[in-house]
């Protein structure tokens, strides 16, 4: 194990966590919006497509 390994692992772990958080937040936002839109009747222009 290189003496700089903790810096390398920290970089990759942090990148993975931050990107996973961003992806999770966007997906959560999408599901929340879709759920909110179900309160309204569907229309012709693709309200329910997303």
């Amino acid at each position: 194990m290189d003496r700089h390994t903790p810096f390398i692992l920290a970089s990759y772990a942090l990148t993975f966590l931050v990107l996973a958080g961003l992806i999770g937040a966007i997906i959560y936002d999408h599901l929340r919006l879709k759920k909110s839109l179900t309160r309204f009747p569907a229309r012709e222009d693709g309200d329910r497509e997303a």
Partner: protein
Amino acid sequence: MWKYANPANFLRLANALIPWLAALTALLVAIGLYGAFFAAPADYQQGQTVRIMYIHVPAAWLAMFCYATMALSALGTLVWHHPLADAAQKAAAPIGAVFTFICLVTGSLWGKPMWGTWWVWDARLTSVLVLFLIYLGLIALWRTIEEPAKAAKAAAILTLVGAVNLPIIKFSVDWWNTLHQPASVVRMGGPAIHPSMLWPLLVMALAFTLLFITLHLMATRNEILRRRLRRLTILAAHEQGSRVALTPAAGGA
């Protein structure tokens, strides 16, 4: 481009593309990580620490690419009045902020073992920090102004003003005497990196670019749905208000 100005057309295209882009991104990340950890050799000066470059450099490129996308969207809002331009701009800001944050933190984690310090106020590092602050400012601006059209116009102007920072970031290492090393991939005379280290870097850069495109499509789709929800909520409130006003108990006719 105007064909996809219609939100329903854009949603159809985004829904079809997102799964394929996500799959391709995952594949490229896997290949890039294999290249970064197993195929690329350690650097003769930096040792194993060079492996941080395979995420730091693509994150830095994407931080700037994302801002360039926002500047183009800002032009779309102000000049061409493209209906989706402001949604695309708003959706890109948090993604750009995240890539800039990754760039700054991984750079710091590389700097400590290589330079002996987490941070220096050199032109490259400082201009990237300014980019991060501009992203945060734009996110705050969007949240502060409630009316989407007004927020879009204000954000578009701020984005275009902030775009002056992009050439400063790119050429800071040439214009000033910085601790940060000069460009070694995109430069006159071709890349200064050995091909065994270059290909994993380019694969990771492509993976990050595809990740950005995927996330941007997803976030823009969310923005369209948010606006649709807002419009429907206002319409429903108006309809409810009209019904209340029409009943005799509410003082209607």
